[in-house]
């Protein structure tokens, strides 16, 4: 049982407070959705949990250990992986090489100078299994820049999963996906969540309310509500500020 949590997170860009006294937690076996209008600070919150951004104040814990001072790569090795809202894959690598590179990051080090990387049959097999899992098995040897938008999103997930993380931070994984692709990805995330803690930032409310165990609503950097989907549906503040007509109660 793994738990990622934070308390008192604070982040401002100049005068703009983007994260305001944020407390969150996500444990293995659950999907915790973080929702909120554009600019609410969701991506910024993820970045502080993943280690990309240093909070101005506050603490991040992984299983009770303070990881606030760990860098991004260190947190990956500790078991926290993330995907990006704007796809950020290696365009001049093939799909499989992208995943291989993500797998290789889990080696103790990559100061290996002579044996060709393309000869690591075990790693290639593992990469292909991950691609299969996200539905990209057929595209393994396609250059990443030739993948469709939806396929690039799937590749993002495969790369995030490559580190065999305990905690997955997913930033709008379904953005721009075709509905059937999105449905399949939602099922995949659901199945991953059996063993992994998933913090899911997502705008698609149908997806959020169908897969999330818990939902937190962010507004101008602070949480205005947190609870199970039924509680959030019924919350008047949430309705007023965010949901409006998106979800009928």
């Amino acid at each position, binding site marked *: 049982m793994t738990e990622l949590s934070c308390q008192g997170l604070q982040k401002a860009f100049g005068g703009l407070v983007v994260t305001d006294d944020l407390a969150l937690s996500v444990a293995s076996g659950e999907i915790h959705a973080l929702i909120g209008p554009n600019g609410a600070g969701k991506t910024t919150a993820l970045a502080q949990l*993943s280690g*990309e951004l240093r909070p101005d104040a506050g603490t991040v814990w992984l299983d009770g250990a303070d990881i606030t001072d760990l*860098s*991004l*790569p260190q947190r*990956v*090795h500790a078991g926290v*992986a*993330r995907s*990006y809202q704007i796809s*950020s*894959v*290696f*365009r*001049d*690598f*093939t799909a*499989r*090489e992208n995943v*291989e*590179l*993500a797998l*290789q*990051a*889990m*080696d103790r080090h*990559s*100061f*290996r*100078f*002579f*044996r*060709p*990387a*393309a*000869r*690591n*049959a075990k790693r*290639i097999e593992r990469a292909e299994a991950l691609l299969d899992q996200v539905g990209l098995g057929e595209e393994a*040897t396609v250059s990443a820049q030739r993948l469709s938008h939806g396929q690039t999103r799937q590749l993002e997930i495969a*790369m995030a999963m*490559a*580190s065999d993380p305990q905690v997955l931070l997913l930033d709008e994984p379904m953005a721009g996906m075709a509905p059937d692709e999105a449905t399949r990805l939602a099922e995949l995330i659901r199945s991953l969540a059996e063993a992994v803690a998933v913090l899911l930032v997502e705008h698609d409310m149908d997806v959020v309310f169908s897969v999330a165990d818990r939902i937190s609503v962010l507004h101008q950097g602070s949480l205005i509500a947190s609870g199970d989907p039924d509680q959030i549906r019924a919350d008047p503040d949430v309705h007023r500020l965010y949901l409006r007509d998106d979800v009928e109660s």
Partner: protein
Amino acid sequence: MSDPQTATASPTRTGLRFGLWARGPSRWHVALTVVFLALLSVAPLWVEASGRGYLVTVLTRVVIFGLAAMSLDFVMGYGGMVSLGHATFLGAGAYTAGALTYHSLDGSRLLGIPGTDQALVTWPLATVVGALLGLVIGGLSLRTKGVYFIMATLAFNQMIYFLFNALEIYGGDDGVGLFAARRAIGPIDASDDMVFYYVCFAVLVVFTVILNLVVRAPFGRVVRGCRSNMARMAALGYQTYRYRLAAFALSAAITSLAGAMAVTESQFLSPSFAEWTESGELLIMVIVGGLGSLIGGVIGAGALFLLEELSIDITDNWQFFVGIGLLAIVLGAPRGLTGTLLGGRRSHD
């Protein structure tokens, strides 16, 4: 599956443990490398047979500066680190080998150790000095990004250049001739230009093989990944700084070796090895030859020296014609000579 990449994953033939001669998508690149090295292996015999024996030393310089350009291409074309300061390492190698040679002629000592003109000592030592200097300069420069990185490498280049200029013992800005020195490489007496050429050519072949292995190895993949998307590499868990620094130091070491070879070739030590225009010239070789292809650095060196040689024959204003020639290449072959020859095929796995 029948695609070539899967095929390379499970080698069935023996002797394919190292993937250099693979059947993967880079086989055209490997073929081009082999063809060009084969040409270089017979070129001096050909120029001598055609009564232009004086060109052997030009070919030697193609090989030596081609080696430096190739190692610059490794950091630039694969690592995305544009260095306008690689003459720093050329100079460091030249001064390491040149100073040792100078003191052996002079009978004096350098920091308490006797000098030597034995290349088996001076060249490896120059390589080590280059690696250490690369760690220091790279270590500081890599803390900056983009155009600031370029400026940092250039700034270090200038510092080293003025340092060499101030070394009165080696003739200051005039430099010093080392013509009385032997060109000994182990038991080989390489005072003959033809012999020396083949020694240099052998070194080039060795490092062509090494660098081609490195760019395909796990280390090379990380370096290439850093060029492509450094932030993402960190998000995958890579400590990107270490890998980029190691790549930079490796490149510096090889460039420094080339500098030592160059001073043994010319038997004249001067700060001009470390002049920043020399950095620019290496950059031109890489770009003309084709970024991210390794052998392109050597091809670029060949093109540049050939243009120089041809223009000097024709006119005193040869630099003008070299410029026009370079312009023609860059306009006619925007991906460099290798890029055009390979038609955009990948030069690694």
